[in-house]
């Protein structure tokens, strides 16, 4: 079968003609119909090319068209997300907002249950609720969104049955942070004041000392209690039970001793004061060379932005943050960008190598085919994960992880394409039009790439659409497993994001779901799209799997 074309050609040469030509000279050719009238009528309908035909068939396949649109949207997302996001994943790694739920302030204020940074705690007790109330009263931001359930349990305490309430609460995790203690230099302290004056946003809150909180204890005893920055009121015990006045209000325990504030020529406080402050509250505590302040983190966050680039916005994490404090929205975009570009590059390289290799195999056949086939066989026998690992171990130090990763994909990736091209070449090389072209003296290369290859193009395009998702999938697998670490190059990748999300699954499911949803959507739509292409280019293959 595979030798048909050649043998016919040579037998005609040796037996049929008197003279054997290497190339038939031009003068031997004559037009068959130079003077006779051509009676064919011209086609009335518009002729349609192969690709136009395939396009029409593709458009009929609704699910593939939808898949193509989804791929388009995902690509647009990958391109635009890092631009839209105000954050940069390499620069902006927040130390407090880690694994925090999606949050957009303007949407959260509408109180419709989305983008409100909500986190559910299943067993909050009365003290927790008091603390939330304290935060709400001091900072004006109420962390408590909703109490979704109450459970009363009775426990034995000092020989008596005591009722204990446990609540299932939904809390705005961004507000829940409330106030934190921060050590800042004199300079920063004054910068914060400047920020407050300019914007009217209260960052600094009056400091408190333990001895003022735990009024019932001796001073040394109170000092040993662990500091909770969110307690600014008098408490009766170390657990933080507030002492309330007769109206049920907190009793402030703010420090009023101006001597504690630090050197007055450095840290004189002249900025906004909180409501109820008669001017005696102290806003800093002296430390050696710096001051300790209580900052509302939500506002301090904006101050940090203002300090860095003059603009300030409340936190806006559309997909929430991951465990490094990166914006997931931006990170998924960055990861997807890399995945898509990398997959395109790998497919292009593998397509070229595979097509040339397969063409040589299929066209020449025989011993060449067998030797090349053995080589491909051996290479394809090495598991990809081993190839990737070996390349990382050998090359990553020298040429960087991305290049060595690329090599790993290229080393074995072209084999499938080569096998496909080889098959197509066997199919077409014995056909008459090839024989005709050969008789006319077309060179091997011309026959291969001008006469046979275009016939195989449909199959090859289809398989290209299938190769891209498989490359993305392998890349994600390997970065997930940590065998390949691309973080130094891209900052992150979808696989890394999912790995981080999986670790934080119990507390921050969003960190796992957003990358996983994006990835699944990409895979599904690429496969549907590929199937549609296959049906369009090879209508005879419709329904057959492969």
């Amino acid at each position: 079968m595979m030798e048909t074309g050649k043998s016919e050609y040579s037998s005609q040469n040796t037996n049929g003609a008197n003279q054997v030509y290497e190339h038939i000279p031009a003068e031997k050719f004559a037009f068959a119909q130079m003077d006779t009238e051509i009676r064919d009528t011209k086609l009335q309908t518009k002729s349609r090319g192969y690709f136009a035909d395939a396009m029409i068939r593709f458009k009929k396949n609704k699910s593939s068209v939808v898949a193509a649109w989804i791929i388009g949207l995902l690509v647009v997302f990958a391109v635009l997300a890092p631009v839209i996001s105000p954050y940069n994943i390499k620069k902006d790694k927040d130390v407090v907002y880690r694994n925090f739920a999606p949050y957009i302030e303007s949407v959260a204020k509408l109180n419709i249950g989305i983008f409100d940074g909500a986190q559910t705690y299943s067993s909050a007790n009365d003290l927790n609720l008091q603390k939330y109330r304290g935060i709400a009263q001091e900072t004006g931001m109420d962390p408590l969104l909703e109490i979704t359930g109450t459970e009363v349990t009775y426990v034995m305490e000092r020989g008596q049955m005591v009722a204990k309430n446990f609540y299932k609460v939904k809390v705005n995790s961004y507000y829940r942070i409330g106030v934190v203690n921060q050590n800042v230099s004199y300079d920063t302290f004054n910068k914060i004041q400047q920020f407050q004056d300019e914007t009217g946003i209260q960052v600094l809150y009056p400091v408190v000392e333990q001895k003022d909180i735990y009024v019932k204890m001796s001073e040394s005893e109170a000092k040993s209690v662990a500091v909770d920055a969110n307690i600014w009121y008098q408490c009766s015990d170390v657990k933080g039970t507030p002492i309330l006045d007769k109206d049920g209000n907190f009793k402030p325990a703010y420090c009023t001793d101006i001597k504690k504030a630090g050197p007055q020529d450095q840290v004189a406080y002249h900025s906004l004061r909180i409501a109820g402050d008669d001017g005696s509250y102290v806003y800093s505590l002296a430390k050696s060379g710096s001051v300790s302040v209580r900052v509302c983190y939500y506002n301090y966050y904006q101050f940090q932005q203002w300090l860095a680039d003059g603009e300030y916005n409340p936190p806006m994490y559309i997909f929430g943050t991951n465990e490094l404090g990166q914006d997931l929205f931006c990170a998924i975009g960055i990861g997807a960008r890399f995945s898509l570009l990398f997959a395109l590059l790998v497919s292009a390289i593998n397509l070229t190598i595979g097509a040339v290799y397969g063409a040589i195999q299929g066209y020449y056949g025989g011993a060449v085919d067998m030797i090349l086939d053995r080589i491909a066989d051996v290479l394809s026998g090495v598991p990809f994960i081993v190839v990737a690992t070996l390349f990382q171990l050998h090359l990553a130090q020298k040429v960087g992880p991305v290049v060595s990763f690329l090599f790993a994909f290229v080393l074995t990736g072209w084999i499938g394409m080569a096998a496909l091209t080889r098959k197509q070449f066997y199919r077409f090389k014995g056909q008459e039009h090839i024989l005709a072209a050969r008789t006319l003296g077309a060179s091997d290369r011309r026959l291969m790439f001008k006469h046979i290859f275009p016939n195989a193009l449909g199959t090859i395009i289809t398989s290209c659409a299938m190769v891209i998702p498989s490359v993305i999938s392998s890349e994600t697998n390997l970065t997930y497993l940590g065998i390949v670490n691309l973080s130094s190059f891209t900052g992150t990748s979808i696989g890394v994001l999912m790995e981080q999300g999986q670790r934080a699954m119990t507390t921050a499911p969003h960190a796992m779901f957003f990358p996983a949803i994006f990835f699944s959507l990409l895979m599904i739509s690429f496969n549907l799209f590929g199937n549609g292409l296959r049906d369009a280019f090879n209508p005879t293959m419709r329904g057959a799997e492969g």
Partner: protein
Amino acid sequence: MRNLGYTIKYAIQRILLMLLTLLIITLICFVLIRMLPLKELPIGDPHTDVILAQREAFGYNKPYLVQFGIFLKNIFTRFDWGISDQLYFGQNVADIFLSKLPATMLVNVYSIVLSIPFGIILGIVAALKKNSWIDHTISTLTMVIISVPSFVYAFLIQYFLCFKLGWFPLLMKDGTDYFTWPMFRSMLPAVMSLSFGVIAGFTRVTRAELTEVLTNDFMLLARTKGLTKMQATVRHALKNCMVVILPSILSEFIGIMSGSLIIEKIFSVPGVGGLYLNSINALDYNMFLLLTVFYTVIGLLAGVVFDISYGFIDPRIRMGSKK
């Protein structure tokens, strides 16, 4: 009979070729791994001397081909793959590997066993109800499920079934009591995560094959003979389908033994996948080499078994014949 002889000859040919390929791959990987710089051993540890002596015996200072000869000789005479010099300090690599194998194999065997009935039944239903809404639903679901990688199911199962509902433990149980109920229960999440893709794969093969067989003329003949649709399908169509389905089950069975590294990582299955990752991170080269050979063997074997079983199951197919 002549056909069987032919099939056996073909099988032997394929196996020999596979062994040759395996040898070449092993040689390449062996040289590449031996070329890597060795990590320093802790000084003063009693095992260090043993490992150094072992390395001397393994010919670490000799040419690579000599080293490879010693390596092969040790494997064939004593099944000695060397000593772990980082991960399990001073222990035999092959012993560690064998102790990790059962967990991986069990998880995968369970998932195949679970998948076969589901996959084949769904495939049969889809094929019999071809072009009805049932078929469309099954086919679309199959398509979607195959596209989504198994670790996404692992996330969903771990979050909803293990964490939210608490039906299963979050991670697989430690220990070697593989055939107890708590162990089985702790394996189930991993088994299920793996099964989705396998079920979808079987469904797809069965549906494609059965729809083709059902249109054959002999099916019409069977019906005209007076067989009910049920009888004709079970006795004639299904039997013919098995020619394609059985090899794919067999090769899946072998292929899946290498396990899924990600699933093993997510559910912390104490299996081969975890060992592989650890051996890379710790740069334990002997372990890494053993696992490389393991994964290669599995991959090659799956292909060979698939091809050979075709010939044995259906004598009409003469694999590798010229015409």
